[in-house]
């Protein structure tokens, strides 16, 4: 006999997994079953879907950054110091 009854903690964990398409069909069924008796987790799920949409926008907007010239120069100086130290030993 498959256990259908899950706690809110478990239900919301499944909801989180499903945001990434990583929940199994069995888990989704359990989650739906849980929704019948729990309006709070319905609210959580609705809001979680909304968060995913906003997160997607952040994902798109995040541009990858680079080291500045100065930062690279600093890195190079420290590295040369280490390089000479090593070669003189």
């Amino acid at each position, binding site marked *: 006999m498959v256990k259908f009854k899950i706690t809110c903690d478990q239900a919301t*964990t499944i909801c989180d997994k499903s945001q*990434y398409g990583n929940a199994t069909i069995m888990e989704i069924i359990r989650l739906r079953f849980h929704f019948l008796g729990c309006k*709070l987790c319905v609210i959580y799920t609705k809001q979680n879907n909304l968060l995913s949409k906003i997160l997607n926008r952040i994902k798109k907007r995040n541009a990858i950054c*680079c080291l500045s010239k100065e930062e690279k120069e600093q890195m190079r100086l420290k590295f040369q110091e280490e390089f000479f130290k090593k070669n003189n030993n």
Partner: protein
Amino acid sequence: MTSEKKHILDPEKWISLHSDYLYNYAISRINKTEISKDLVQETFFAALNAMKNFEGKASERTWLVAILKRKIIDYYRKINSTKGQAEVRMNFYNEGEYEGDWIEQRVPQTWGNDADKNIENSELANTLAACIASLPEKYSIVFKMKTLQGFATEDICKELDITTSNLWVIIHRARTQLRKCMEDNWFIK
């Protein structure tokens, strides 16, 4: 003549050739500029000391990335053990008799019908980004890798040396906290 080309190391060119790549590699995982820079610098130092172990089978960059990966795991382990113990985590679910049920004072509130109207609003995205930044670091690293950088679950587990179930527990805690943070700072101010 052998067809396999043996790779060689040229430390004088490391910074100009690889520092941006390594920095991007680190920042997409750690997301702290200073720490990412330090890790890259340490990687170059460590590489310098390990040059004699380089066998020439992998390219210079692959070899450097492998060293950086170790540095990232070490960093992740460090914040996991030291800060982790002192940090107070907010619980959202009961323990004991009502284990797993929502704690009454922390149940999700409804955000109103027009909550999803403003998702184009950049202030909204900024607020969420600030909420992510306020997560405990060991959650935010895993959460960002999974959500914002879109890494595969197995890759994150391998890189940070954690189990899959561990990953989902972290994602779950991160998202529960984010929901609450957005409720307090945006939806029900």
